[in-house]
C-alpha cells in the first residue's frame, strides 16, 4: 500500500531521501504515463540564474531552461503552458528526479561520468559551456597562473570544486576554497571580498555580472579551465521518456539547421523537403513509437521556436547577458551544436 504521493514528495523535498525511498510505493512505472495522467510536466529548475531561470517583472519564471521545459511539455501534452516549475538546489534535484518529485531537470548541471553512472541520464547537450574565473578589476591576477594561494568562492557540490582541485593540483598551485549552499551566496561573498575570485560556468558568470550595477569593476579571466556539456536530465530506466526528451530537444536544433522557425512552422508543414517532413511528422511515425503524436516536434517548435530563437530571446546579444553563440553555434557556422539525424 503506497503512502500518499504528497507525503513521498514532502520527504524527498526535505532531503530525507532514505525515508522517501522506504515510505513511497514502487518506483514510477512510466514517466510519460504519469505526465499524461497528471496533465502537467514537472520540471526542476535553477533557483535563480538570469537568462536561464529567473522570475521576470511579472513574477513569472522564464529563461532558456524554462523554454526547454515548455518544449517538452508541448511535445508530451500538446500544451506548453502545462508546466510546473520547481526551483531546486543540487541536493534536492538529484534526489527528486528518481523519486518522481520532478519528471525532468531543465537545470544547469554538467554531464559527468559519475552522474551518468549514478543514474542521471543526459538525453542531449543543449549548452556547451566551460568554467572561468572572475576577479576584481583591480586584482593583480590577469591569468589563472596569477591565482596561486588565492581564496576561491564557489557552489558546494558543484563540478567547480573538482575542477579547481584538479587544475590547481596539476599546476602545483595552492588555493583555499569556501563553498556555499547557493551560487548567490558564493557570489555575494566574492563581491564582499571574502574571496579573490569566483569560479563558475562562463554563462553563469555572465548571468551574475549582468545583474550587477557595477559590472565594470570585475573582469572575467580569458582562460577556460574545463568543458561543461550541459543539458536536461532524466532518471535512468525510462528509455521511452528519455527518447522523447532527447528528440524534442533535438528537434529544436534540427529546426534551426533546416530554417524552421516559430513563425513559419505552420507553412513548413507543407514543405516538400523530406528532412522537414520527417522533423514535423508529416511523414514517419517516430512520435507514436514514443507514445505521443507524430507532430510532437511541430508542437515544440510552435511553442518556443528553434534553438537559435530560444538563444536570442533569453541570453543572446540583445539580452542583458549578451552571450554570443561561440561553441554553441551550429556546426555549419563553426560551433559544436548539431542535431542527431532524423531518419
Amino acid at each position: 500500500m503506497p503512502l500518499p504521493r504528497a507525503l513521498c514528495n514532502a520527504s524527498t523535498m526535505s532531503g530525507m531521501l532514505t525515508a522517501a525511498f522506504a515510505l513511497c510505493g514502487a518506483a514510477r512505472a512510466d514517466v510519460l504515463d504519469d505526465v499524461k495522467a497528471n496533465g502537467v510536466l514537472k520540471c526542476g529548475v535553477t533557483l535563480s540564474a538570469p537568462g536561464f531561470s529567473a522570475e521576470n517583472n511579472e513574477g513569472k519564471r522564464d529563461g532558456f531552461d524554462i523554454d526547454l521545459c515548455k518544449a517538452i511539455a508541448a511535445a508530451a501534452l500538446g500544451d506548453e503552458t502545462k508546466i510546473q516549475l520547481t526551483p531546486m538546489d543540487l541536493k534536492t534535484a538529484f534526489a527528486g528526479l528518481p523519486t518522481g518529485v520532478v519528471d525532468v531537470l531543465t537545470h544547469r548541471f554538467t554531464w559527468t561520468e559519475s552522474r551518468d553512472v549514478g543514474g542521471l541520464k543526459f538525453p542531449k547537450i543543449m549548452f556547451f559551456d566551460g568554467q572561468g574565473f572572475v576577479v576584481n578589476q583591480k586584482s593583480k591576477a590577469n591569468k589563472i597562473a596569477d591565482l596561486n594561494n588565492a581564496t576561491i568562492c564557489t557552489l558546494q557540490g558543484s563540478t567547480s570544486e573538482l575542477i579547481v582541485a584538479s587544475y590547481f593540483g596539476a599546476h602545483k598551485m595552492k588555493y583555499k576554497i569556501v563553498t556555499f549552499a547557493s551560487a548567490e551566496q558564493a557570489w555575494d561573498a566574492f563581491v564582499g571580498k571574502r574571496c579573490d575570485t569566483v569560479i563558475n560556468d562562463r554563462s553563469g558568470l555572465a548571468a551574475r555580472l549582468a545583474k550587477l550595477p557595477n559590472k565594470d569593476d570585475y573582469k572575467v579571466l580569458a582562460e577556460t579551465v574545463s568543458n561543461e556539456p550541459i543539458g536536461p536530465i532524466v532518471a535512468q530506466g525510462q528509455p521511452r521518456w528519455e527518447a522523447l526528451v532527447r528528440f524534442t530537444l533535438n528537434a529544436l536544433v534540427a529546426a534551426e539547421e533546416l530554417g524552421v522557425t516559430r513563425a513559419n512552422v505552420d507553412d513548413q508543414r507543407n514543405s516538400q523537403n523530406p528532412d522537414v517532413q520527417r522533423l514535423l511528422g508529416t511523414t514517419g511515425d517516430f512520435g507514436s513509437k514514443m507514445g505521443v503524436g507524430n507532430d510532437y516536434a511541430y508542437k515544440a517548435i510552435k511553442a518556443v521556436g528553434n534553438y537559435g530563437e530560444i538563444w536570442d530571446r533569453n541570453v543572446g546579444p540583445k539580452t542583458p547577458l549578451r552571450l554570443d553563440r561561440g561553441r554553441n553555434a551550429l556546426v555549419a557556422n563553426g560551433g559544436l551544436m548539431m542535431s542527431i539525424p532524423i531518419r
Partner: protein
Amino acid sequence: MTAAPKPRISRAVLKERLPGYLGQALLLAVVAWLAWRGVSNFQANVRALHLSVGFGFLHQEAGFQIAQSLIAFTPTSTYLDAVIAAALNTLLVIALAGVLSTLIGLCIAFGRLAPPGLVHGASAVYVEVFRNVPLLLQILFWYFSAIAFLPGLEDSLQIGPVLLNNRGLFLPGVQFDPTIALNRPHVEGFDVVGGFAIQPELIALTLGLSIYNSAFLAEIFRAGILSVPRGQIEAAATVGLTGVRAAVLIVLPQALRVALPAAGGQYQTLAKASSLAAAIGYPDIMQIVGGTVASQTSQALEAMALVILLYAAINLVIALIVALANRRLLKHEGR
C-alpha cells in the same frame, strides 16, 4: 534493609492493565509492520531504479579541498577523511557555541533577575530580540556584516601580533624550527602566511548559534534560579555566604536540577541548528557530506544516511551526557 517482597499481580490488577498491554502490543505490531514495509519498499525501489547502493565509495580519493580541517586533509585524501573532517568541524562549532551560549545565558539570566534598571531592561530586550529573529537570518547577518565591515587583505588591521581582515582572525603561532620563535602572521600575495587562522565562517556561525541559543538558555536558567526557595538564600546568608559564593554554592546547584533537562534539549537544538553552516560556507557535516560528497559521488542515498546517522549520534551523546549529569545531581540530593 530487607528486600521488598515481590509484588504479585492480582487478577483484578491484571484486568485493569490488560487494555494497556494490548495497546502496546498493537503499537509494536504497527511499528514492526511499517519497518518491514519500509525495508522491502526500499529494496524494491533500489532494484527498480538500478541504483548501486553501498559505502565502498568512502575509500576513494575525494579530490576536493576543505577550507578548515582539524585533521590533515588534501585533495588526495579519501571521502572517509572528508566525512571525519566535516564531523570534527561540526563538533568544534557545537562545543564553542555550547560553552559561549551557556556563559552568555547565565549572565543574561542573572541580568533579568537584577532589580529593575538598565541591566534588567537590557537583558530583557536581548532575550526578546534574539529569541524572535530566525536563526538563519542572524547567521547570515553576522557573516555578511563581518565581511562587509572588516577590511580587505591589503588593509588588514594589525593589533599587536594579531591580524584581522575579512579572511579571518590570524593569531600568532609558536614555531619550533629552526629556533623557538613567535610565528607572526603577515600578508603575502593573496594569502596570510604564518600563525593560526580562524575563518570568518567559524566566527559568524559560533556567534549566531551562541547568541540565539543563549536567549533561550537565559530563560531556562532564570526559571531554574527562581525555583530555588527564597529560604535557601536567606539560610545561606545566615551562615555567612553572600553574593557570588551564595550563588555558586547554594543557588546554582539547586537551580541546575530544574534547568538541566530543558537546557539539555536546548543544546540538542543547537547541535542540529549548526547544520545551517552550509548557508555561509562553513565546512560542516551538512555541507561536506550532504553537499559535496553526495553530489560528487552521486551516492546521495548513502551520503544522506550518513548525515542523519552523524547528527543522531551527536544528539544521542548530548542526551546521554545530560542524563548522566542529571543522575549525578539527583544522587547528590539523596533521592
